[in-house]
């Protein structure tokens, strides 16, 4: 039952990057005629899968830690490259303008953030609260999503009054109700590096093309439109 060799380039992508990646992929295919398929999941799961031999060609991670783990396992070709930075916002679907000051008010019942342990945006959110010395005070208000995506659901369903999430969230195409957001000054958190690595495998050449394409002007423009630097 040997499977036919896949034509597509398999791109494993961390959940928060998926929209930008899809647009970039379309441009890439237009240019190179190489079709692209995406495997969207959390960076942690993707790392475990790649370690176990998943047939992915490219890995786009939400931070540098995961590719480093893969490097130890001798799974990657060349070096990881940071091609964008994520931006953190406070987002709400309620009818007020979010701000860092409002976090302490009674109006805010629950604050959603991604799990700092597993999600880079969660880690960044935690740094913000630490830097503002709010972590202790707000502890009882915090609820954690397994990822940025789940954090978004908390906010989107108004289960949490507001939450920390990726700026890319509100750039999601055909998302109509964008709610209110506040872009958090970058001084409060360490840069959220979006990195890419080429994985060893049968399509290393095509993968390298994609790797390079991420630094192209077209890609940069798309990333900007999706809320990355």
């Amino acid at each position, binding site marked *: 039952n040997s499977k036919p060799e896949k034509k597509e380039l398999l791109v494993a992508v961390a959940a928060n990057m998926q929209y930008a990646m899809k647009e970039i992929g379309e441009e890439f295919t237009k240019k190179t005629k190489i079709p692209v398929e995406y495997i969207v999941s*959390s960076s942690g799961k993707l790392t*475990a899968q790649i370690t176990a031999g998943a047939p992915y060609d490219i890995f786009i991670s939400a931070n540098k830690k995961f590719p480093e783990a893969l490097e130890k396992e001798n799974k990657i070709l060349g070096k990881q490259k940071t091609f964008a930075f994520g931006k953190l916002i406070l987002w709400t679907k309620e009818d007020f303008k979010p701000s860092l000051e409002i976090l302490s008010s009674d109006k805010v019942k*629950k604050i959603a953030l991604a799990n700092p342990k597993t999600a880079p945006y969660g880690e960044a959110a935690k740094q913000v609260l630490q830097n503002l010395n709010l972590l202790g005070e707000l502890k009882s208000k915090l609820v954690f999503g*397994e990822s940025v995506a789940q954090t978004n*659901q908390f906010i989107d*369903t108004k*289960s949490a009054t507001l939450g920390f999430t990726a700026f890319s969230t509100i750039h999601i195409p055909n998302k109509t109700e964008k709610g209110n957001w506040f872009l958090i000054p970058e001084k409060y958190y360490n840069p959220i590096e979006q990195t890419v690595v080429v994985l060893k495998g049968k399509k290393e050449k095509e993968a390298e093309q994609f790797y390079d394409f991420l630094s192209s002007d077209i890609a940069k423009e798309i990333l900007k439109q999706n809320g990355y630097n």
Partner: protein
Amino acid sequence: MIDWNPLILTFKLALVTTIILFLIAIPIAYWLSVSKSKIKPIIETIISMPLVLPPTVIGFYLLLVFSPTNSFSIWLKETFDLQFVFSFEGLVLGSIIYSFPFMVHPIQSGFKTIPNSIIEAAYLLKKSKLETLLKVQLPFMKASLLTGIVLTFAHTIGEFGVVLMIGGNIPNQTKVASIMIYDEVEALQYDVANLYSIILFAITFVILLFVYIMNGKYSNKIVG
């Protein structure tokens, strides 16, 4: 340093869920086993449906239903002081909904195996339906009850999709062991994940082993 809180919370959740579900499932399964209603197959089907959706997705729909800002939730909160998101009650509710079929189906098929004549005999001895249920029917279908209880209990321990969604992973409150292990795996902290897995495994193993040994003793007595 082992953090026991998630473990304690897990077993508390499993216990509460199993007990509540047991009490809810019995009347429903009973009705299903005796009813000749035309809509019975529909209800039987509906009971299985929570299984069909991924747990996180169920959790998402539960979030929509119980979002604190909607009027139903406000009413619940004001009338019963109940809030189902980001609370232990929410975990219980989510687990109950998701484990529902695991309790109801085995019990229902248990009810079906009871010979009519022993139920009739109890009625003729002037036993109410309730007393007959408790003293004749339930003891008779012990194997099925055990199946329902074990499946529900074990499943609640392992479930994390619904629980994660509706609970919000709050330490000491809704952060159960399964979520914790999941987090550690996600964070590539495999050693820690292994450690907690083993602990969870070991405790559950001992509990279930005890249940099965007791059950074996009792069954042997009856069949002689």
